[in-house]
């Protein structure tokens, strides 16, 4: 593992509609360094800019202030080099492509030849335990399976960094817990750095080494909770006392935001 941070942001800010009356300060003064191999969750109420922050890392939108590097390069260069993979709340599989051809999409864009692509997609399918479904069409799979294909696609090119925007948000609770465990296993196998946006406190704590708590209007980081649960996590982790303590810590950090907003006369809903 290199010493170059996976993500390094200093004084990062994003303003939408800067010149108009609907000016929105989506993010202000974000300082965050993510080291290789780390799993970081971004959590916060709606409108706190956590998805915006993820899109800045991905160079899908451009910051209005501050500096940002991804893998030691500009975010733009990192995107061009396909340094990161991305997964969204909707699996976003192409319905006209079979499961394996969906996974091969990033490799096609990298110009890999067919044999190499097929070999990699077969490997990825094994990794997400869908080896028997290579030729299936996406609509023949359940929601959880579709999301696993999407993860396989985002990791197909073996990026060092994985950006995930509420990838399990649309799944039921049982599937969701299963997928969380699967994600940890997969990322441990591939030594992937993950930035994971979520609404769910237990999800954030269960997955992450650090939970970044964000507040809205304007979006900023209010607290970073170190989750000292160790790397080995299983179903028992969810019932451990430390787990509950960390959940409480994150919840109180989030409640702090609510209190201060109320004090300032801002309604949250």
């Amino acid at each position, binding site marked *: 593992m290199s010493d170059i941070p996976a993500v390094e942001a200093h004084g990062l800010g994003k303003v939408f509609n800067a010149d108009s009356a609907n000016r929105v300060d989506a993010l202000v003064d974000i300082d965050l360094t993510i080291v290789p191999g780390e799993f970081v969750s971004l959590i916060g109420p709606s409108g706190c800019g956590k998805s915006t922050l993820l899109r800045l890392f991905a160079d899908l939108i451009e910051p209005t202030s501050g500096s940002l590097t991804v893998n030691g390069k500009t975010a733009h260069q990192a995107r*061009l080099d396909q340094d990161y993979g991305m997964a969204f709340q909707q699996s976003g599989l192409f319905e006209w*492509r079979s499961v394996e051809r969906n996974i091969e999409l990033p490799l096609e864009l990298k110009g890999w030849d067919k044999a190499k692509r097929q070999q990699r997609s077969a490997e990825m399918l094994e990794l997400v335990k869908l080896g028997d479904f290579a030729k299936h069409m996406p*609509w*023949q799979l359940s929601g959880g399976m579709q999301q696993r294909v999407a993860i396989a696609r985002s990791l197909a090119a073996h990026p060092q960094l994985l950006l995930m925007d509420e990838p399990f948000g649309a799944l039921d609770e049982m599937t969701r817990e299963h997928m969380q465990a699967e994600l940890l296993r997969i990322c441990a196998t591939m030594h992937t750095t993950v930035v994971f946006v979520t609404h769910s406190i237990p999800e954030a704590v269960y997955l992450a080494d650090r939970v970044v708590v964000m507040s809205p209007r304007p979006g900023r980081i209010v607290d970073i909770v170190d989750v000292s649960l160790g790397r080995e996590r299983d179903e028992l982790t969810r019932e451990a006392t430390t787990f509950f303590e960390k959940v409480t810590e994150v919840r109180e950090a989030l409640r702090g935001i609510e209190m201060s907003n109320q004090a300032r006369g801002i309604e949250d809903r």
Partner: protein
Amino acid sequence: MADASGAHPRRSRLRRALMFPLAFVLVASLWEFYKAIGPAKGGSILGIRVLPRTDDQSMSHVWDMWSRLWQPEVRGNSTRIISVVAQATFYSLRVSLLAFVLGSALGIGLAVLMARFRIAERALMPHLVISQTVPIIVLAPLIAALMAFASRDLASKTWIAAVILGVFLSFFPVALGTLRGLQATPPAALELMDSLASPWWKTLTKLRFPAAVPYLAPALRLAGAAAVVGVVVAEISLGVRSGVGRLILSYGQEASTDPPKLYAAVFGAAALGLIMASLVVAVDRTLMRNRPQENS
């Protein structure tokens, strides 16, 4: 979700197969029924004729039309009408197919151009809409005249004018449908392609195009029908030799003495439309295979 074709695909296929001859018999019965009860001199309301005459001159018996198909085209000749009509229909079908393919390609090309450059959409769209308001019956001789003006060789190849007219009518629905499809790409999918640093044209071929296919299918059906109309009208208007349109024209001139003969040519034109429609449906099915869909 997976099985959209219904619980009894076999039964519905049988039903569909029976529908066609049934519709045929129904139309034939209606024809004969009206011929039996309708007024021989036709019916008028306030001096305007609304009901057609039912004498043999105007409405031939269905069985007369049928038997005429198997008789020689002209007395003393051994060639049956049906083979003359079939040949003409096949000729027109090839011309229509060419018009359909070229028209669809043109339509798709224009749609891509308009999807890529907003300014192209704003500049082109009004002209495209206006182009479709020009009466085609006027256009056919105009195109023929322009071709003759361009080159003496072209002047004799009237079928080229028929192709141009077919293209002129068929490109429009394809351009419109494709453009709508290209503009309806899910934003999340575009974001995914962006995150993969996909260049514009790869996003077009790998995402926008396949995502637009469901919009393309109905557009192609319209284009298939439009190509046939354009070609047949051009054939009638320009007298394209060997086309079914020309046959309608020349048999129509004999209609006073040999009415069922005209209907033979009309059957040919109807068959042309049906063949074209089923070819387009086959294309549509091929494009839409492996897709989740409700229309089977």
